[in-house]
C-alpha cells in the first residue's frame, strides 16, 4: 500500500524547525543570564559559585546535612585561633544535592585551585541511591563546564542526546535562575541553620533502634565518588570525608570507610553517636541537626579535624 502523506512530513518538519528556533533562543538568553548570575540567592547560584568561583581556604561540600550541620563562622573562628591567622571558610553544601553533585563539585574545586582543606560530608546511604537528579540540576552548566559535562554524559545515551537541547537543560530551572536575582544576599557563608525540632521527644526515646539490611552501592555514584577521591589523593590536597550525626540511624558506614581507606583519605564517622542519639532535641528531624545541635557538632568536628591539619 502506497502511503499518501499529504504534506504530513512537511508539517512535522516546519514544527520541528520552529521548535529548534525556540530551543536556540531560550539557550542563548538563559546562558547569558547564567553568566551574570550573583553568587548567592538559591541553589542554582550556590551551585554555580562552588563550581566556578569559590576560592576559600576551607570548603565544605555535602547535601542538606552538610549545609545545616557546619556552622561556618564558628569553624572559621576556631581555625583562625588554631593557625593564628585568618582562614576563609565557605559551606558549599546544598540541600538535595547528594553524592554525584558533590563529587562533581569536589573535582571542579581541585581543577580550579588548591584549597587547604575540603570537607566532604556524605553517608554510605547516599552512595546506594540510584538517583541522578542532583547532577541533572547542574545541567545549565553543561557547555560551560567540562567536568559537569562528563558527569552528565556518563549517565547514558539518552542524557547525552537530550543535553543538546537547551529547553531540556533548563527544564524546571528558570524559576531558580530568576530567583537568584530576587533573593537576598546569603549570610553565614553558606551555613543554613534549622531551628526547633520535629522529633516527638516523648515517644522516640523509648523506641528500640532498628537495623535494616544495607542496599547495593550504585555503580555510577560509586565510580564518581572514587574518581574524586583518587584526584585528591594524587594531587595531595587534603580531603576529609565526614559523616555527620544522624538521629539513631539504622545502618552504618563500613563500606564508605573501606573506600576512603583504599585511597588513603581520612574518614570521620559521627553518624551513630550515643551523645546525639540520646538527645533528640538537638535535631530538627531524624536526618538534620538544628542550630543548637549544629554548634555542638561543629565544635566536636573541629577537635577531630585538628589531627589532619
Amino acid at each position, binding site marked *: *500500500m502506497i*502511503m*499518501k*502523506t*499529504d*504534506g*504530513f512530513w512537511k*508539517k512535522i518538519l*516546519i*514544527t520541528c524547525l*520552529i*521548535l529548534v528556533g*525556540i*530551543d536556540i533562543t*531560550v539557550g542563548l538568553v538563559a546562558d547569558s543570564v547564567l553568566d551574570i548570575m550573583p553568587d548567592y540567592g538559591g541553589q542554582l547560584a550556590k551551585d554555580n559559585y562552588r563550581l566556578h568561583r569559590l576560592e576559600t581556604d576551607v570548603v565544605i561540600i555535602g547535601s542538606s546535612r552538610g549545609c545545616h550541620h557546619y556552622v561556618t563562622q564558628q569553624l572559621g573562628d576556631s581555625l583562625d585561633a588554631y593557625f593564628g591567622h585568618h582562614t576563609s571558610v565557605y559551606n558549599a553544601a546544598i540541600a538535595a544535592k547528594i553524592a554525584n553533585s558533590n563529587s562533581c563539585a569536589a573535582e571542579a574545586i581541585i581543577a580550579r585551585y588548591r584549597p587547604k582543606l575540603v570537607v566532604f560530608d556524605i553517608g554510605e546511604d547516599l552512595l546506594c541511591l540510584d538517583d541522578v*537528579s542532583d547532577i541533572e540540576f547542574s545541567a545549565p552548566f553543561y557547555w560551560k563546564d567540562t567536568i559537569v559535562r562528563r558527569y552528565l554524559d556518563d549517565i547514558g545515551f*539518552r542524557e547525552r542526546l537530550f543535553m543538546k*537541547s537547551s*529547553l*531540556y537543560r*533548563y*527544564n*524546571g530551572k*528558570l*524559576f*531558580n535562575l530568576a*530567583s537568584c536575582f530576587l533573593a537576598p544576599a546569603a549570610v553565614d557563608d553558606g551555613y543554613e541553620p534549622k531551628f526547633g525540632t*520535629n522529633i516527638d521527644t516523648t515517644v522516640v526515646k523509648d523506641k528500640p533502634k532498628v537495623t535494616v539490611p544495607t542496599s547495593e552501592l550504585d555503580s555510577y555514584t560509586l565510580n564518581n565518588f572514587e574518581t574524586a577521591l583518587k584526584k585528591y589523593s594524587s594531587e595531595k590536597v587534603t580531603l576529609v570525608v565526614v559523616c555527620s550525626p544522624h538521629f539513631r540511624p539504622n545502618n552504618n558506614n563500613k563500606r564508605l570507610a573501606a573506600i576512603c581507606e583504599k585511597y588513603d583519605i581520612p574518614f570521620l564517622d559521627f553518624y551513630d553517636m550515643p551523645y546525639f542519639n540520646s538527645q533528640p532535641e538537638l535535631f530538627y528531624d531524624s536526618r538534620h541537626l538544628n542550630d543548637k545541635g549544629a554548634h555542638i557538632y561543629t565544635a566536636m568536628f573541629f577537635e577531630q579535624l585538628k589531627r589532619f591539619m
Partner: protein
Amino acid sequence: MLFNSFEFLIFFPVVCIIYFLLKDNRWRIPFLLVASYYFYMNWKPVYAVLILTSTVTTYLCGLLVEKHADNEPKKKTFLVISLIINFAILFFFKYFNFINESIFHLLEIAGIRWTVPNLNVLLPVGISFYTFQAVGYSIDVYRGTIKAERNFLTYALFVSFFPQLVAGPIERAKNLIPQFHEEHSFNAQEAIEGLKLMIWGFFMKLCVADVISEYVNAVFNNMARHNGTSIVVAMVLFSFQMYCDFAGYSNIAIGAARVMGFRLMENFRRPFFAYNIKEFWKRWHISLSSWFMEYVYIPLGGNRKGYARSQVNMMITFLACGLWHGADWAFVLWGGLLGAYQVIGSMWNKYVHKREYKTVLSRVLGTIFCYSLGVFSMIFFRANSLSDAFALIGKMLTDHGPLFVDESVFAYGLAALAILILKDTKDEFNLNINFMHSKHTVVRYLSTAALIAYILLFGSYAKGQFIYFQF
C-alpha cells in the same frame, strides 16, 4: 512501557511507520498484537500470561455462547464460566489480601484467630481495565448486541491494543472490533489531530499533574507537619492532579490510536464544569461510568423496578465502582459517598426542587457545589488509609494556619493550571479562540511548537507513574 518514557518516544513512531508500510490487515493485525504485547511486557513479562488467559477464555466463551444462542441455560453457563475465570484472576491479584485482612479483623473482634497468610504478588498493571473490557465483550455477545469475533488475533488485539491497554479508555467491542476489520490508509489530517491530542495529553500529565503532585505528596506524606489550610490547598490541587493525570493519559491514548486511524471513545469532558453530580459522571471517566451503567446498574434493574429500588441499585453500582478503584475500605467509602451524592441529588430533585436549574447563577453555584463535593470525596481517594482520611478531615476543619508554600511548584504548577483552565473554558463555552487549531497557519505552527517547548522547559521528568496504573 510508560507513555512518558524515552522508550515510548522511539516505540510509537516505529510502530506507526511499520503499521502503515504493511500491506493489509493480514499483516497489520498480527503486527499490532505483537507490538501491544511488547508494550505490556516491558513492565513484567510474565503477567502477559494473564492477558492471554483473559483473552482465550472470553474468546472461546464468546464463540460457545453464540453457538448455543438458542439454548439459554448453556448460553448462560458459558457466560458465567467466562465471568468466573476473569473475576477470579482479578480477585486473586487485586482483592485477595484485602478480603483476607478484612476477615482477619472481623474474626479478631469475635475472638477467632484467622491464619491465612497474605499473598506476596505485584498487582498486574491495567488488570482492571482489560478484564472489564473482556468481560464487557462476553456480556455483549450473550445479550446478542454484537456477534462473537471469529478471528482470534483480531480479538486478542481488541483486549490488548496498546494505546488503551493499561489505563483505558475501557473500550466496547462494538466500537473497536469493527475498526480492526477496516483497512486504514494513512490520513495526514487524522495523524496531525492525533499528535496534537497527544501533545495536549503530555502537557496535562507532565506540566500540570506531575508538577503539582510534588506539593500534594509533600503535604500528604507528612501530614503531621502540615496544617488544615495547606491540606485544603493540597486537596484542591490533588483534584486537578487526578484529572490531568488520568485525562492526560486518555488523551495520549486516544491521540496515539487516532494517528493509526482508530477512534477510541472520549473519556473526559471537562468534568469540573459539571453543575450536578449526575452531570459529573457523564464527564469523568466516561468509559468506566458508562461500563458500570451498562453492565451493573441496568442488569440490577436500573430504574425499571420503582424509585426506591433504583436508588438502591445506584448505591450498589457506586460501591462496586469504589471497590474497582482499589482494594481498601477507603475506596469503598469513597464509592459509597459518591453513591450517596447521587441518591441525595435525585431525592432533592424529586421531592424538594422539581425544576431544572437553568439560570447562569444557579449553574455557577451548582458547579462550585459539585466541585466541592468532588474534592471532599477525594480525601478518601488520596488518604493513605481510612483513619488518615478522617484525621485529614479533622485537620481541615480545625487546624488553620499559614499556608505551606513551595515557590517553584506554585510558579510552574499554577501557570500550567491557568493554561489548562483557559483551554477547558474555551472548549466548554465554544469560544472562537483557537491556537493549535487556528485557521492562520503561522498561529497554528507557532502555538504547537510553543506548547512542545513549554512541556520540555517546564514539564516534570521524574518518571511519574500514572495514578490509574494502580487500578
